[in-house]
């Protein structure tokens, strides 16, 4: 695992029992865990003086270690050997690994939401209407049913996407979606045969 010199020296400091007492170490560890679990918009923990400078430094380094472990998909044995290289005592190593393991999926979820991706469809609403009349003149009776479909999107600055379609067009759309569903289901069965 590649870590910068600043992060490495901060981790050495954090693991050194003669320089960082146990209560400070525990405070840093719990602050890092709380920050990983905290949702977007929630305030991250702030250390109190007089040790705030050192604590912030170590907090940033330990957070980086956790994030890089999950980001790179490194196994716990890799993380353990990294910490042992920084001269961490076994008890601190075990505690840190336990915390990392317990928050692994949370960290993965947060990391997966980063990056550029198209708006993600999370829900869909629909309305079925029959047009009677409009200011643009008589409505063509042959048009019949008109659907108003609204796609709810995650990660879109413009809000939900709304469009209209006829019965035939909605049928076409549903056919395409069913084709996609069958393709996904076929590949899922290949990977995990029942």
């Amino acid at each position, binding site marked *: 695992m590649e870590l910068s010199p600043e992060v490495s020296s901060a981790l050495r400091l954090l693991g050194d029992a003669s320089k960082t007492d146990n209560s400070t170490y525990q405070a840093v560890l719990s602050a890092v865990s709380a920050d990983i679990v905290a949702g977007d918009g929630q305030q991250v923990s702030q250390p109190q003086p007089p040790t705030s400078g050192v604590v912030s430094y170590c907090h940033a380094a330990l957070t980086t270690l956790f994030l890089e472990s999950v980001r790179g998909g490194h196994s716990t044995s890799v993380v353990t050997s990294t910490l042992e290289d920084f001269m961490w005592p076994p008890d601190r190593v075990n505690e840190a690994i336990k915390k990392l393991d317990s928050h692994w999926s949370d960290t993965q979820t947060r990391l997966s939401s980063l990056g550029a991706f198209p708006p993600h469809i999370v829900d869909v609403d629909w309305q079925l209407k029959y047009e009677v009349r409009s200011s643009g003149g008589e409505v063509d009776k042959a048009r019949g049913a008109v659907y108003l479909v609204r796609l709810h999107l995650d990660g879109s600055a413009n809000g939900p996407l*709304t469009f209209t379609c006829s019965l035939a067009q909605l049928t076409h759309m549903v056919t395409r979606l069913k084709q996609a569903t069958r393709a996904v289901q076929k590949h899922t069965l290949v990977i995990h045969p029942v």
Partner: protein
Amino acid sequence: MPLTISEDLKAQLSLLTTQNASVLQEFCRLANQYYRQEINPKIYNSASNKLGVQPSQVEDAVRALVFLLIHCTKAKASKLEVEELATSLNFTKDAVKVLADAYTNNEGDIKEYMKSMGVQVPHYNNLEWRFDILAGSRALHHIAEPLITLQLFLDHSSGIQQQNKEDGSGGKCEKILLQTDPNNLVHMTNVLEEALQEARTHHSRRVQQYLK
């Protein structure tokens, strides 16, 4: 009930009533271009030079003519009623015929233009999909996340503008890139299938019958 128009409109049409049939024919052609939004402002200048009036008067006259034809279409006037109205406005006999012909020949275009003036919501055109496996990103390596990428094609323009596009692009067609995961794909498919079922219910058929 005889067709009537406002005094303001009569005043705006006064420029045309004094013209002969061939000039009126030109104005009808300009009105036709107006529906298709193809009018070039320079045309107003050249017409105003020929007639010895201001370009703004020419523009007003074209707009008034367009409004007159729309008014007749909304009232579902017959050719005879249009001719009677034109005569009452002091158009010459030949001009009346030109006007009535313009009305009947361009009925389809006028209706399309009126539709474009109504409530416009983007309209579905097509949906393409692609099934991907996301193997990694800058923020997260070594993953295997199934993703479905969708490209939704939506039309924004009215029918008449779509017909005019010669490159076959079919008017203003917006391509929107979206994605979803397998769970949401199944959910979306089920919800939209329910929507299709609703149109086949007894209740919907009754509403449709009532409107016929």
